[in-house]
């Protein structure tokens, strides 16, 4: 395992391209996803949003977000512990949440979901958080840490213009998230302040399941085989009536229907799935024509559910899905929540399996 490669961390929008570059450079995960083309989505029967989103203007691309792992600026502490440093800014800006529909979002580094933080179990994480907005904001991590690092009102909460630094050890391994915990809570969440926090297991701490652990560690030979994808199930309440108008993964409705995610048939697929949908108590993930193993919260190396094709997550719940299309007929395989309501409001996607 070679993680002493020089990595860069850039502030703000620069982080996006750096992340994409790093993702391609070091993880070689899923096939690099290119921006959507202008072709009409197949298999929708007219039930779709119309028009195209300019992802460049929007500051983020849902395709790029699938494989953008931000591993931070890496160095070694005197005790031998690896340190990962990040810069994250709260930026209040308008984003296009459906073609032609503009939403006054609150973002981390200008994107929704925020940058995906990826570390290894036992790493030291240091995050300089700058509030560039006009409201109070925090970073609250789902992970193990002391009360003084919790990122709640009064604890490392950044006032407008202020910076605070969070520091804690990355544990437990799994698929986690971070979000703003300022009040009013619901508004800070549904306006877009959330992101993925993925901790890869340290194989040396799991000798009995070393192979499984290694396959999860970004950059290892065992990991290269996998096509890893980040999917944050989210939604937007564009008219502020406490009900969502738009549902998606990685924010943009029908994005992966208009241009399906390309999957190499013979390489296994791992999805880091996170539900941050507000107002609706649950969201779900259903895969067509195939079954998957599921690791709830990703905190185990053996599946918590085997051979299922639908999994349900409550608000803030997440997990890891593993499956393979080996020996399958190449073609289009849909995936979507099994709440038809969310499907019809944008959370409809497909894999394009290629031989």
């Amino acid at each position, binding site marked *: 395992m070679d993680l002493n490669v020089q990595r860069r961390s850039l502030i703000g929008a620069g982080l996006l391209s750096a992340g994409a570059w790093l993702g391609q450079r070091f993880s070689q995960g899923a096939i690099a996803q290119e921006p959507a083309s202008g072709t009409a989505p197949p298999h929708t029967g007219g039930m779709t949003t119309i*028009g195209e989103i300019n992802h460049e203007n929007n500051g983020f691309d849902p395709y790029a977000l699938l494989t953008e792992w931000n591993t931070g600026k890496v160095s070694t502490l005197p005790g031998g512990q690896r340190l990962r440093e990040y810069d994250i800014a709260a930026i209040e800006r308008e984003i296009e949440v459906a073609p032609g529909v*503009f939403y006054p979002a609150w973002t981390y580094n200008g994107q929704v979901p925020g940058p995906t933080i990826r570390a290894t179990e036992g790493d030291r994480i240091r995050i300089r958080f700058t509030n560039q907005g006009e409201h109070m904001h925090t970073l609250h991590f789902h992970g193990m840490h002391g009360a003084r690092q919790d990122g709640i009102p009064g604890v490392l909460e950044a006032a407008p213009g202020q910076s605070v630094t969070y520091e804690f050890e990355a544990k437990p391994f799994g698929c986690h998230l971070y979000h703003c915990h300022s009040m009013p809570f619901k508004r800070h969440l549904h306006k877009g302040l959330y992101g993925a926090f993925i901790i890869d297991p340290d194989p040396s701490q799991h000798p009995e399941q070393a192979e499984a652990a290694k396959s999860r560690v970004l950059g290892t030979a065992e990991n290269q085989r996998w096509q890893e994808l980040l999917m944050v199930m989210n939604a*937007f309440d564009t008219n502020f009536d406490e009900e969502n108008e738009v549902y998606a993964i990685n924010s943009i409705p029908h994005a992966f229907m208009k241009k399906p995610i390309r999957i190499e048939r013979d390489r296994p697929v791992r999805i880091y799935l996170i539900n941050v949908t507000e107002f609706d108590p649950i969201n779900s993930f259903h895969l067509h024509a195939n079954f998957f193993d599921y690791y709830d919260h990703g905190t185990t190396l053996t599946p918590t559910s085997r051979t299922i094709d639908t999994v349900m997550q409550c608000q803030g719940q997440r997990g890891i899905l593993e499956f393979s299309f080996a020996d399958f007929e190449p073609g289009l395989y849909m995936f979507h929540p099994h709440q038809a309501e969310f499907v019809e409001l944008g959370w409809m996607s497909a894999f394009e399996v290629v031989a």
Partner: protein
Amino acid sequence: MKVWRWLLPPILLAGVIALLFTVSPVRLLNLNAPPLESLQVERTILNTEGITLQVRAAGSEPMQIAQVQIDGAYWAFDQQPPTPISRLSTATLTVPYPWVEGEAHHIRFLTNTGMTFDHIIDVALATPKFSTSTVLAYGWLGLYVGLVPVGLGMLCYPYLKVLGQRGLSFILALTLGMLAFLLIDTLQEGLELARDAAIAFQGQALVWFSAGVACLALIAIGRRQGKSPEGHTLSTYMALGIGLHNFGEGLAIGTAFALGELALGSFLIVGFTLHNLTEGLGIVAPLLKQKLRWIEFVSLAALAGLPAVAGVWIGAFAFSPQWAALFLGLGAGAILQVIIEVGRYLQRKIRQAQQANGSGVSLAGSTTGLAIMYGTALLVKF
């Protein structure tokens, strides 16, 4: 020097407007409020192509419909013209949606600001196509609720002819009661329709203003020779007022029938016939002392009853709420004028005849008129 006094106001006005456009107080206040938006569906057409909606925008800036949801699902749609819809203009949206006959559909428009505007199709039914057979069928419907009952009511003329002085006063008072009912009914109908019009049209004010102007104009025309209309002239005004009311009734029936909100069974048609019969009685009441020629009879019946046919046609094929509100306002004004003139006529009759207990007869008559109209309306209100 004098010229300046005349030129000053327009020059100042132009200057102030120019100033507003260059240094707007809104910009000075540095307010970055989102534009005001308002969207109204004026026409819904359901056919084999899907759903076609004519919408009117009344926003502070041209409005952009970014997406359309039907029954909680995004659907591809086509907008003509495709440009943002400027204030008070209309656009036509076609959605190839497989609507289900007899069921409700909820339509939601998402604008570029994320605002939503909802429209409900209560009962989905194919919109009547403009063809000879549908035009005839709707025309037939209009005749049934308008001309037929009014004509039947007028045919009661011989019965009224034998009445004495008190009986005549009673019938005139009954007509007044009937007209009072129609006035309230027409105003209500107009105000209700006005709510469906784009806010900028101020539909409810339109109803009141058109009623006021129509009433005053008809009084002025009616008395242009210095005296209040009587006899045949009064009947003509009454037929005009009732005709405008029946036009409104036709509009409501045509629209409701086409939208599937009204199942017009034979029961309801009988109801309309009974309800509008009284109108015919009222029209002939001022003519009881005169000879009535057939041609007058037919033209009065046509004036009062045929507008229902036009109403049904427009309601079914070319409905627009702001025009309907305007017409119903005019109708209310025309009825008010007739109430005033019939009231004065009744007053004169009672005074001329030096009738004892004139007020009692009037009260009994007008109450009976109201009661009949209210009672028969129980059959037809939907």
